[in-house]
């Protein structure tokens, strides 16, 4: 029965890894968006 614990752990680990990576993409993207807004404002330095 504890073997199913391993099964769950493997599937969970897979999705945790993918979600963490997607999270880095999303956070970098929102940071970039903010930078672009700053660039668009005339005379404002980021």
């Amino acid at each position: 029965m504890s073997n199913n614990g391993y099964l769950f752990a493997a599937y969970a680990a897979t999705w945790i890894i993918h979600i963490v990576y997607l999270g880095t993409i999303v956070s970098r993207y929102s940071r970039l968006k903010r930078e672009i807004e700053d660039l668009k404002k005339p005379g404002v330095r980021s």
Partner: protein
Amino acid sequence: MKTVFPILGVLTAILLSYALYEALVAAPTEQTMGDVQRIFYYHVPSAWTAFILFFVNFGASVFYLTKRRPAADIVALVSAEVGVVFCTVVLVTGPIWARPVWGIWWAPGDIRLTSTLVLWLIYVSYLVLRRFSSSGQTPTLAAALAVLGALCVPFVYFSIWFFRTQHPQPVMGGGGSIDPRMLHVLLINWLAFSCFAFLVCWSRYRLERLQREVDQAHALESLLEPRRSAR
């Protein structure tokens, strides 16, 4: 373009859910290993996806060295990063599967896990090089490293293969013929993960393109208006 992505996203999510159901419920239970064997349906497709991505990296690097297109460089970077992510999944699910089945987390002679580890090391070193070198030369240097890394792969495989004949090790699951129903579930999961990988690569590609445009805008700004620049 803007509408295609969400549609593909939803389709992929549906496909992944269906594949998960197939793997956990519909697939037949393996005789010797029991339900733990179902890790196979995540472990193997991740490995295949990682290998394909690394092959794409090799192709993109060679293309960059010959044609010097920036897009090729971005493809190389993206495929290496996403490839490393999938490779990490393989290296994490592998030991989790091995522990209940063999009683050990790792076997040095297990050709698949060990060669995957070496592959992971090679492409992580590629990403480290990209991080640590200055932007003008990075694409060329990284492409050269990628070519060497890719050429290394057959040697990795053969050296570990021979090592295994000298030091016999337990064979990881999937050796020999496979039940057609299991093959069916495996292929569905592979298709689902391939679609997922494609979408992740696409997002990362868009992010990188945007990042480079912003960097160029910054560079242009500091060139054109040095008086107002904080530096």
